[in-house]
């Protein structure tokens, strides 16, 4: 009997927050202690287990359902994924610890305790993030992106103010647009190559016009979600309207997850067309973003908007 491979830890990292979220939806008010610090600790233990298993067995590809790609969906478990999973666990875990104090007793407009709604949303977001970080299938990434977007929207609107409603609507509509742009890219790739697996796409890819357009669509979609300049305009209002623990989640994780995906796709699917020029272009955008952010920060009045930049 072999030691549990990285695959088992990865499965637990996605299944556990899912099951916890579902339980929290039904009996969340009785599970406060578990959800606020026992479960986050358990998740960190799982991540540590994954990292240890990785260092023993090296990076692996885990076939979900036992079907080999491109028939089934695969996970790529490697150092980068593990690092992001660890960062996610720490940040979401901290948010969970902080949340009961922040929401103490406050109610939504329909007299439900906000903290009772916070738990399923946060744990579903956690499951979505973990699923996204592990995924090696472009359509599966689309579904995890949607899951992440909807969970984030729910968390933003939890603040209860008219501002947060507007911010949530803005975030949702733009997030949907971004996902659909990404999906069109996926559709074009599938039409051309007949596979959805990142590794196989990477090996099959030819640098023709269709590939360029698909790549642009997918990356523009992800750029919107990453709030990379010049698509950044939706981010500060969303942060300003959201509750404090949610702001931390949004800026630290949701945005970085999209950036991680950009990296994965760029080097996994599109290595043929990943030219040094593109890297310079990204660098240029980043520099502009920093300058723009500095200018806006000087003009911003509220602290949270400041942090968002």
């Amino acid at each position, binding site marked *: 009997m072999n030691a549990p491979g990285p695959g088992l830890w990865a499965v637990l990292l996605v*299944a556990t927050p899912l099951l916890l979220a579902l339980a929290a939806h039904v009996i969340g008010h009785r599970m406060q202690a578990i959800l606020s610090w026992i479960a986050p600790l358990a998740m960190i233990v799982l991540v540590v287990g994954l990292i240890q298993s990785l260092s023993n067995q090296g990076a692996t590809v885990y076939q*979900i359902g036992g079907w080999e790609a491109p028939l089934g969906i695969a996970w790529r478990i490697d150092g980068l994924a593990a690092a992001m999973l660890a960062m996610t666990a720490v940040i979401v875990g901290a948010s969970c610890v902080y949340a009961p104090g922040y929401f103490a007793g406050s109610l939504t407009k329909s007299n439900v305790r906000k903290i009772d709604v916070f738990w399923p949303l946060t744990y579903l977001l956690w499951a979505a993030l973990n699923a996204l970080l592990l995924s090696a299938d472009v359509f599966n990434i689309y579904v995890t992106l949607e899951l992440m977007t909807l969970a984030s929207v729910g968390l933003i609107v939890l603040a209860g103010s008219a501002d947060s409603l507007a911010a949530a609507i803005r975030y949702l509509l733009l997030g949907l647009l971004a996902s659909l742009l990404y999906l069109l890219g996926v559709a074009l790739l599938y039409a051309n190559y007949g596979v959805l697996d990142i590794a196989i796409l990477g090996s*099959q890819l030819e640098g023709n*016009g269709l590939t360029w357009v698909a790549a642009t669509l997918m990356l523009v979609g992800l750029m919107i979600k990453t709030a990379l300049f010049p698509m950044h305009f939706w981010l500060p209002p969303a942060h300003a309207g959201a509750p404090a623990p949610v702001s931390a989640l949004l800026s630290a994780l949701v945005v970085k997850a999209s950036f991680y995906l950009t990296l994965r796709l760029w080097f996994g699917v599109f290595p043929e067309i990943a030219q040094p020029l593109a890297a310079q272009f990204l660098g240029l955008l980043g520099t502009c973003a920093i300058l723009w952010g500095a200018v806006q920060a000087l003009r911003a009045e509220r602290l949270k908007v400041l942090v968002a930049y």
Partner: protein
Amino acid sequence: MNANPSANPRLGGATRTLLLVLMLGLLYLLAVVVLMIPERPLYLADDSRLSVVDERVIAESGVGNPVTAVLLNFRAYDTLLELAVLVLAVIGVQAAGAVVVPRNSKNGWQDNRLLQAALAIIVPVSIVVAGDLLWMGADHPGGAFQAGAVLSGAGIMLILAGRLNHSFLNDWRYRVANIAGVAVFVMVGLLVMTVGEKFLEYPGGYAKALILAIETAAMGSVAVVFVFLFDAVAGPLASARQEDRQ
């Protein structure tokens, strides 16, 4: 160009024309690209198949309907996440505080004998049709989502006829029904790991039974979620109109 009343007043006429030109350019580009789609996908260029899913592989999946095989077996993990998206929509609505409180006033349709008589036929028939779609989905067109949609149609009719005034989210049984689809899916996926398989890898011979179990739970969840979402969005408006009438 006539004034468009729904146009965004922040965008001037020049900006909109520019956007229109850009959009037409994008459409032209997409049309060109779409016409470049090859006759056969490049991964299968040396093969005689159009898809990685062919008869041989379908036979291994435990079901006869190729789409069901993909949805509930080969790419079951996508379906699991998609069911979670459904649940998330309900919780998001709950977070917004848009939960419908029980409507105490009768909405006037309870006295309409034609409607109530029609319901007495439509609701049971819908249940039977849904069950049939679910069972047939293994080998013919059908499946959990279609069955769930039919069931939710019956549920929506009950709401519109004033027969289902319920505070859904305050009822723990509703919340259990909400999550049942995802919960059963995840637990089946974990259960098969205890016999040495990978996550969601159905052991030989059990595929059809497991798929049917998952689909039943999923059908229930889909129906319940759609009914709630309809109620949350249209419920207040339906009630308001009735009050205007009185």
